[in-house]
């Protein structure tokens, strides 16, 4: 699918929702639990999480593939893993900075 920063998507397999923070110029096969993400308001019968794609997502974590220029933020947690094709995305290292504001 062609992504755009700001686009909100929901998982076809679990409760996970994400927002695209950085989008590659080329379309990507972005999945959750092994099945393609859906538009946030899409109606579809739930599908089951594929084996090996069940590590879960955490609210507030960023998932990224720096080589692709892809970054998404989890806005609702779920049980499936976020992947591009078969490659599971890594949690972007949270640089916890001291409060400054």
């Amino acid at each position, binding site marked *: 699918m062609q992504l755009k*920063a*700001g686009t*909100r998507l929901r998982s076809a397999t679990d409760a996970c929702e994400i*927002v*695209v*923070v950085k989008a590659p110029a080329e379309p990507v096969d972005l999945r959750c639990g092994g099945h393609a993400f859906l538009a946030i308001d899409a109606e579809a019968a739930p599908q089951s999480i594929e084996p090996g794609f069940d590590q879960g997502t955490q*609210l*507030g*974590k*960023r998932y990224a593939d720096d080589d692709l220029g892809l970054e998404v*933020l989890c*806005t*609702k947690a779920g049980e499936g893993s976020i992947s591009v094709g078969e490659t599971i995305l890594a949690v972007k290292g*949270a*640089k*916890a*900075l*001291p*409060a*400054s*504001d």
Partner: protein
Amino acid sequence: MNIAMLLEMAAEGDPERIVVGPHDGGLSAAELLERARRAAVFFEKSGADVVGYFGLNSDVLPVALFGAALAGIPFAPINYRAPDEQLTGILGRVAGGLQIADDDEVERLRACGAEHVITKDELASAIAQPVSGEHPFVDPEEIGVLLFTSGTTSEPKAAILRHRHLVSYIISSVEFMGCEPTEAQLICVPPYHIAGIAAVLSSLYAGRRIMYLPAFDAAEWVRTADEEKITHAMVVPTMLGRILQTIEDTGVEPAALRHLSYGGGRMPLELVERTLRDMPHVDLVNAYGLTETSSTIAMLTPDDHREANASEDPAVRARLGSVGRPLPSLEVEVRGEDEVALPPGEKGEIWVRGEQVAGEYVGRTTLTDEGWFRTRDAGWFDAHGFLYIDGRLDDVIVRGAENISPGEIEDVLMAHPAVTEAAVIGIPDAEWGEAVAAVIVLHAGQSAGEAELQDWVRGRLRSTKMPAVVDFRDELPYSPTGKLLRRVLRDELSVAHGGGAGAG
């Protein structure tokens, strides 16, 4: 990806957590989201193209900020201390807006041209009932916040912060729900300052409760911080001095306080050292940021403070006067007049690039084609990447063909035992174009004359940097956000010295 999403996430992650107001009786994340949703419907129906906020800090501010974001309408906190003429100018630029105002400001706002004014109580009644329905998708490119920058050197400019700038700043620098439920932040910076907006967003995302002081008052600050078990606060230099004095005078030290960040102006070294000595258990953060960069771009961390303070090495100790290192998500360079990056130790203009950097005003962007923002601040890096700020480039005094930056002369003057505050400015001069003038505040009970301070400077710097005029005052003029108002001093001294003819 809009700033209201940050609130939605907090309400999803920990709906019961108290996020605004006192620990007992404050608003939970879920309640704040509900109020913001109702406010969004009200703002949409009002037809306003801007939601203005005119008045003191209050719990209405986050409701209005997130309500406007959900509705996709820019939020514009306006300086309630602006004189009528300036206010009329600002209101003219947000003419289609709805202004949320304190009761006693309604008449003044109308007189200055605001057509659509609502009090905080009227807003509360208007959003008393539940609403239904979905809010529109808000493009991250939409304007989140409009801020009229302080205008210490010129007319206020309307700085634009788009949703993507603010969200990028928060998600790259704050760990979601990363703090303990006992953490609470006291906000005393004015709502029309970038730090006031950033504090709401970063605290909420971190899960830290915010508590407002309507406006800064040192005694009230200490009392509230103590009673409300405040753990965190952000202050400007003038506030910190008064807070320390009040703690010393009353013997009341807020027991839960453990983190103070400061910024917004030049912090006297003496004050940093005093804070480290008087409150050794409190973490200090020096934050450097600008409206146009969605707040902080560099910080001196608590560990940096302690390491510098404990060091015998002058180069390490000097870091207490730096703003620390740039945030890892940003690029910061010091460049010369030829726009090429300078090596450590060389002074130039500070340039910054990154997702949080907006660098845009209504009607024009100032970013270069490569996305760099020129801060107009002068500074340099040391060999370890610590950034030092040397004032605004616009404050540089041009005496004859020589560029003189006030900071160096101010540092020398402040090192004089009788001097507590010093401001150095350029005033018109018939012979040199500009002459160096110093405005001095002496420590109570101490004395030093014009000739003595001139000799003091001449003994330490080049003779061209010696102030031609030394003026003594009881206090220096500062903006509420801690910025020295050099323009005020320049105007006053230029008149007092008859255009400076013959000086120098």
